[in-house]
């Protein structure tokens, strides 16, 4: 980034400390919060290697090494089920949730009327700001057993559709909720990228006889490439986080067979079930995998000549 900073003369650390003491003091509350609620808990992960007893505390609980991990990798059925559901949900969401905002953004971008664009954008951004509680409640009101859709079907003598609370449809339900809530908001980045496309490229391609479809493939999509890759990397790092609040809210209705994911497993077994060590082990494995995924994906992006999230 180009900043026109006048380099201050080099001073000894005491002088610099004296000079910058106000600046330094300003950073302290924020750093304390980060250390206290981010780095300190990182250390707390050691309970994954202990037979953690709350009344003994971290220091006095007995070390058990990798015993807690062994329980996981020996194929505890509940854990295997949670991993399976997580992976399925991730896959489904990458396939169905990820492209939605791209399609929406392309359509919004091709709207010729300024006013229409603004209305559509502002309406579609809105659901992003609703809590999951509100979103789940809205879906219940529309699609639930006594919701609008089924009331309508009943009053017309048709068979009702069991959508909310049906384990077989749970993944579809979750996916459509995510699309409804966030695909509008996600267009913001694609629209920003599209707005930076050099308009003369379209002109040049039109003179060369490119059709609208050819312009899409040869001008518009390449312009989105960087953003798409950036978002895919971030999605990958996030891939084991699949809608924790969203699922917790609806888990009771469909049972854990269909709805348990890694995060809810940690919550249900750790905090509700007080199986601290095992849950921490699961959380730790998950965190490590997520970090490896981001770093790996970022490397991959560099291989393909993209910037990725950061430069190492």
């Amino acid at each position, binding site marked *: 980034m180009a900043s026109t900073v006048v380099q201050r003369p080099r001073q000894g650390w005491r002088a610099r400390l004296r*000079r910058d003491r106000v*600046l330094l003091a300003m950073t302290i509350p924020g750093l304390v919060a980060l250390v206290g609620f981010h780095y300190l808990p990182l250390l707390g992960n050691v309970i994954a290697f202990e037979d953690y007893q709350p009344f003994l505390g971290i220091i006095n609980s007995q070390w058990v090494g990798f015993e807690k991990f062994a329980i996981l990798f020996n194929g505890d059925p509940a854990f295997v089920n949670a991993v399976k559901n997580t992976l399925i949900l991730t896959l489904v969401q990458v396939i169905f949730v990820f492209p939605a905002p791209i399609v929406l953004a392309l359509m919004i971008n091709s709207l010729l009327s300024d006013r229409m664009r603004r209305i559509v954008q502002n309406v579609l951004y809105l659901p992003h700001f609703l809590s999951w509680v509100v979103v789940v409640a809205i879906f219940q009101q529309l699609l639930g057993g006594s919701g609008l859709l089924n009331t309508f079907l009943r009053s017309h003598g048709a068979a009702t559709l069991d959508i909310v609370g049906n384990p077989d449809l749970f993944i579809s339900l979750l996916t459509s909720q995510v699309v409804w809530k966030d695909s509008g908001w996600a267009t913001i980045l694609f629209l920003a990228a599209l707005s930076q496309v050099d308009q003369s490229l379209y002109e040049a391609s039109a003179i060369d006889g490119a059709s609208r479809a050819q312009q899409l493939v040869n001008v518009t999509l390449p312009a989105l490439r960087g953003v798409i890759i950036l978002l895919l990397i971030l999605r990958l790092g996030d891939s084991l986080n699949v809608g924790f609040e969203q699922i917790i809210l609806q888990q009771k209705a469909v049972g854990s067979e269909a709805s348990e994911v890694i995060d809810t497993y940690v919550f249900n077994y750790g905090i509700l079930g007080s199986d601290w060590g095992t849950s921490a082990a699961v*959380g730790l494995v998950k965190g490590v995998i997520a970090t490896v995924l981001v770093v790996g994906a970022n490397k991959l992006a560099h291989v393909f000549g993209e910037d990725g999230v950061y430069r190492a």
Partner: protein
Amino acid sequence: MTVTEPARVEAAVVSEPPAQRDRRRRNPTLSRPGVPESVLKVVVLGFAVLAVVVPFLGILSTSLSSKEHLDAKGGFVLWPDAVSLDAYRTVLSGGVVSKALLVSVGVTLIGTVLSLLVTAMLAYGLSRPGSFGSRPALLIVLFSLLFSPGLLPVYLTVRGFGLIDTYAALILPGLVGGFNVIVLRSFFVSIPAELLESARIDGAGEWQIFTRIVTPLSKAVLAVIGLFYGVGYWNAFFNALIYLNDQGRWPLPLVLRTYVINNTQISAGDLAASGAGALPAQPALQMAMLLIAVVPILIVYPFLQRHFTKGVITGAVKG
């Protein structure tokens, strides 16, 4: 692996799109869309817009409707038969919902102000190149983005600090978002150093420069980041669920879960209602609660939406 600079993140923020108005002047050589394309566009975008508008209309209509109308229609209606504010009056007359609303408003206001203040101070402290300790401090912020400590350790930490069943547990764990710090810092860095230098020559201290020059220049970005923090606190569900065992302290989202999602009937006792008289229909009460949870967002939304694209493109990645 060493993180040298938050290069990409900053670049994404700084490269603001040009003003919308300029770029909309279409090039005349561009072909207009054909009929099938236009139809597809109208159908898809029309459906998307209706999918957002219709539920809101339904919530509003149901909350305003009479009991008879709702009974006849089976509960949820898209158009009210009357405009009755009884449901709102009942829900807000005292009891669990009013209490939860109060908690949510308080936590949101206090939390947002604290978060903004601490985030902006941290970002400013890191934004002056060559200042003492800013390098390691920046690394502390950056690394916090790479690793998430996990649900249980955070819970144990919050419990270790004795915050269980306190409102502070809803605020402190999420007080500073590393991402927001980076966004704000990159904005502060882009403020011309000459401006700050001249203030310094005029005798202003760092604190004065921060409050009188830097923050007024950053209003748009601060507004959007404030919105993100505010929405976070307002919608906070999970923190309250795990940290507050005492249901009397629950904020609005948890009360909504009980009475709307789990469909627990809300009774006069829960509301400490205005004494005699039948309650409005359950669906009307439920939808009134739901709308109350949405209204604050609808109120601040129009003031902030024009800053969305300009201010925090990066925020969208995270959010």
